[in-house]
């Protein structure tokens, strides 16, 4: 192949911008042009389409669980400052649910699941856990929505949290170290994503636990404060066949 080198090709700077070889000033200049000229933006987009498929060679890496919580916090998704809550996030629904913690809660959750379930879902699997405190009271209830890879954690009346400390949820697979699920709250339901590592380990042999941590979460990746609630995990069933 013998394409002549054309240093003056007007496209070159855009290609170099996408490849990532320009210094900060030259990058800023291209970005200004993109804002001012549609043709410049289109040329950059064309180079994105050409070069970015190379990113397929980069291996996927699972970010830590607490990153999603950090994003939610930054975007003020916290239930306290949200506008109209979605069904799953509706505080009253969950508060009502947690009053009947345990088996009743599981039954209620299943009933709700039937209501909100999307009709085309091939199968829907849920697991539930009641996180009891040392005094025997229910601290939180947790529902693991396996199909959607998430866990919904609803406070009942948790105790034992000092001011300035925050509850962190852990999954403890049998014979393994605790794995951080994410930060939860004592006064609001929280939905957290379940990554592949957690999904693979959620089950009847694993335990959920809540420990008391600094507000941003355990600095070590392992529980550092007192464990104030624990619960075993029970299958709440697969609804695949019963309601299709």
């Amino acid at each position, binding site marked *: 192949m013998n394409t002549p080198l054309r240093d003056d090709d007007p496209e070159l700077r855009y290609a170099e911008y996408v490849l990532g*070889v320009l210094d900060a000033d030259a990058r800023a200049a291209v970005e200004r042009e993109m804002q001012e000229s549609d043709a410049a933006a289109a040329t950059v*987009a064309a180079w994105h389409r050409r*070069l970015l498929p190379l990113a397929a060679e*980069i291996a996927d890496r699972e970010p830590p669980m607490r990153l*999603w919580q950090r994003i939610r916090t930054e975007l003020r998704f916290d239930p306290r400052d949200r506008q109209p809550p979605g069904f799953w996030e509706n505080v009253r629904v969950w508060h009502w649910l947690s009053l009947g913690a345990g088996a009743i809660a599981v039954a209620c959750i299943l009933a709700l699941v039937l209501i909100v379930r999307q009709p085309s879902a091939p199968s829907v699997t849920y697991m539930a856990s009641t996180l009891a405190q040392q005094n025997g009271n229910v601290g939180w209830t947790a529902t693991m929505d396996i199909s959607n890879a998430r866990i919904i954690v609803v406070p009942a009346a948790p105790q034992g949290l000092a001011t300035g400390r925050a509850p962190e949820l852990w999954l403890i697979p049998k014979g393994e170290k605790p794995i951080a699920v994410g930060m939860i709250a004592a006064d609001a339901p929280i939905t957290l994503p379940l990554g592949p590592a957690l999904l693979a380990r959620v089950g009847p042999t694993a335990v959920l636990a809540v420990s008391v941590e600094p507000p941003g979460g355990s600095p070590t990746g392992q529980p550092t404060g007192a464990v104030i609630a624990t619960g075993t995990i029970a299958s709440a069933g697969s609804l695949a066949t019963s309601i299709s």
Partner: protein
Amino acid sequence: MTAADGMRHTLEDLLARTADRDRRAFAELYRRTCARLFGVCLRMLREREESEEVLQEVFTTVWQRAASFEPARAGALTWLIALTRNKAIDRLRQRRERVLDDPIDLERLPDERLEPATEVESSQNYARLANCLEQLEARQRRSVREAFFSGATYKQLAERCQVPLPTMKSWIRRGLMQLRSCLES
């Protein structure tokens, strides 16, 4: 694989719904793309903490600017990867005089070629690009690849490869122009 995969929304759908302030769509978009994009951050920044910060920045930007996604220009995954790379490169440019890397011997740099595990359309695009890359002269190919994955400037690349700056520029520019004609043929 979860059961929900059977009824997957496309990433384009999820991005459009995110633009409409649909938090569930946004959460799903995060769940489906975070590992891909975190991989990109780690590869370029090679520091976990900084990669987490950049990924957080990426998704807050996605929430705020999802409406600026134009499906006619690029697929959703391309848009997300472009956004991630831009933020990672900006971060790299802010690093001051850090001794970044060991020298590179372009003669010995391996040409990785992996089977991409992503969606069908992107693997077709990847195959075409990989094919065109293979047609480049070895030093051009390796400099383009190294530039792409490291996000380093011409100057840094020239230093690391121990070649004069004009040589590095010439390899990469020739490589880019040849890639364009190959991809468009």
